[in-house]
């Protein structure tokens, strides 16, 4: 109730109202300074570029998750979808370079199809998306293990791996620019354009108050289903980059759904929908990745990492939550 009323404040105050990107930018800046103190050469263009490249998959997943979360839903299936895509790609390509592009197209279609199924079950059968996508998670993991007899088969071609692993060399000033970064920039631009479009506004309105949106003529189910398809597509692109970066394994997507949701929330997007920006979500993912790199540089004991991660998430979210309710 409160949220709904607050949301009717003038939209022009977008930068300072809760859900803006200012808090996450602050955290990001602090982490960058901390990294800069410990490891100044990390901020050199080549190493920064490769960091951005390797972070691209999780940033893409966060962007996809943003669309689902801002319209009031969840997508817990993205991690298993990434795993499934990587394993499927390896088996279908089977190290044959000629099959690279057909398989890439197939993966995109597969991602969209999983999103469509998630969306239709959630909207038409009225199953809460938490359950739909949890079920989809179990089904995808089980099915991919079953299909591959418990251990991944085949292999990815060098052409396929190029997207996630290689870079455009000898770029002036920057040194090398990973293909993954170029893909990321293109997708990010598309995502921002999309949120600025009518569809983007409808999406936020649906998450804000579905009943009002419905009454004003929005087909809520269609909007939400499209959000799930976008999330599935983002997972497909992420899978192509991640498979390229690290090769085939059943661990490829493990835990990424929680990572993406955490990133989105860190970026100031409210779970439950109606608030936040896709830029914030992507910055949230970047911050999370920087945090992991920071822990590598500062030598935080492997076992203690989850504690640091948990504490920072709770702190950041609690601070922004109390700030927003104080307003």
């Amino acid at each position, binding site marked *: 109730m409160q949220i709904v009323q607050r949301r009717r404040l003038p939209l022009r105050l977008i930068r300072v109202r809760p859900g803006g990107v200012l808090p996450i930018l602050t955290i990001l800046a602090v982490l960058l300074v901390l990294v800069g103190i410990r490891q100044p050469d990390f901020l050199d263009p080549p190493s920064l570029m490769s960091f951005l490249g*390797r972070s691209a998959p999780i940033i893409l997943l966060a962007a996809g998750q943003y669309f689902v979360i801002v319209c009031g839903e969840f997508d817990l299936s993205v991690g298993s979808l990434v795993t499934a895509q990587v394993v499927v790609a390896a088996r279908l390509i089977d190290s044959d370079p000629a099959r690279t592009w057909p398989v890439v197209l197939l993966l995109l279609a597969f991602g969209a199809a999983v999103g469509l199924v998630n969306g239709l079950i959630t909207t038409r059968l009225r199953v809460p998306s938490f359950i739909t996508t949890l079920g989809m998670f179990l089904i995808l993991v089980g099915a991919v293990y079953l299909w591959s007899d418990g*251990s*991944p088969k085949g292999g990815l071609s060098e052409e396929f791996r190029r997207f996630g692993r290689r870079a455009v060399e000898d770029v002036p000033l920057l040194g090398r620019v990973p293909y993954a970064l170029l893909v990321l920039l293109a997708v990010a631009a598309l995502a921002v354009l999309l949120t600025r479009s009518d569809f983007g506004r409808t999406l936020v309105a649906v998450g804000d108050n579905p009943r009002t949106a419905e009454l004003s003529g929005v087909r809520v189910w269609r909007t939400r289903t499209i959000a799930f398809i976008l999330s599935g597509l983002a997972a497909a692109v992420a899978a192509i980059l991640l498979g390229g970066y*690290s090769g085939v*394994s059943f661990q490829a997507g493990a*835990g990424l759904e929680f990572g993406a949701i955490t990133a989105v929330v860190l970026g100031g997007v409210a779970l439950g929908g109606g608030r936040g920006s896709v830029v914030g979500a992507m910055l949230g993912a970047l911050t999370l990745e920087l945090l992991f*790199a920071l822990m*590598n540089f500062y030598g935080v004991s492997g*076992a203690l990492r989850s504690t640091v991660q948990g504490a920072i998430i709770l702190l950041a979210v609690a601070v922004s939550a109390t700030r927003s309710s104080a307003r």
Partner: protein
Amino acid sequence: MAALAAVTLLALTACATDEPAAGPSGSASAAGSGTGEQSKFFVQADYDAELALLDAAPTGPADKPWEQVLNPTMVDTAKFKKSGPHKICFSNAALNNPWRQVGFKTMQAEVEAQRSRISEFVHVDAEGKDQKQIADINDLLGKGCDALIVSPNTTATLTPAVEAACKAGLPVVVFDRGVNTKCPVTFINPIGGYGFGHVGAEFVSQRMKPGGKVLALRILPGVDVLETRWSAAKVAFDKAKVDVVGVEFTDGDPAKTKKIVDDYIQRYGTIDGLWMDAGAVAVAAVEAFQDAGKPVPPMNGEDQLDFLKIWKDKNLTAIAPTYPTYQWRTPIIAALRILDGQQVSNPWKLPQPTITQDNLDQYLDANMPPLHYAMCGCTDLPGYPQRWK
């Protein structure tokens, strides 16, 4: 409501318990060392014994390492003698990684090879859950098995369940991880984690200068077989006076591995040695060095074919200690021998070969899938190679 009614009804029946007589025994003492505190799983006597076994000569057929025994101590099994064919039951900890998949396929093939003597083979997968495995074992006890094979999910926590199985009177064979009780007829495993960790760490530290920088990559904390590997490596690194700059957990995730290695290369400029407690992410670690444009330091992997291939192709300085999957054949062989009343060794220590530069070609097989384990001892089994593909 229905449940409640059923319970009141059942409450009238007699009390009973499946609990074994003795409680689990405690573990032995720990020792301190230089790279920080030694794990409480470190048992000096076991460590010494395993290292001694690395040089021991096995008894048994030379071309069948899965039937060989190191330092055998035979036990009498006459009381289990039974006429066949037999029903053999297997409580499996999990099938959730390629090592267990390859192993289980090998075991199934062994069962097929012994078809004339085995009337039924019952397999129950505990899916990596202690609680489920305890229930599974109890369940199997009611199925009229002639012998029970257990691959425990966790040593300490499966002990009570295995003791209960022993009390039921059928021969119990434990393999891979052990249990804290002497009640099974035999416990089968290769030399073990100390041997694995030691071989890798010794190789890596011998090929670098004292004071050189080693990165240790581990899969997960708190898994007993992996803890022993790391604790033995720690001893070796301390002895060689090399600098272990990081001990990181990868969760077996190649992407996470590459990020960690990348950051360590950046942080220290060069890494002089790479040790890992399991081979799952060895290829990812090699790629991280390649992508950073750095030479791959001396390292260890395991006997997975993707690693052996990159080792050969890139001419790495590497070694592959193994935890052979052929040990999955042995429990079937042992169970049948016990049911014949033949003596078997307890413990049944299998040799644990190491793949080196010299014998690398012998284990490389381009026709098998990348995550297949070379040390499966399965080439003479029915269905090879299709079953493992």
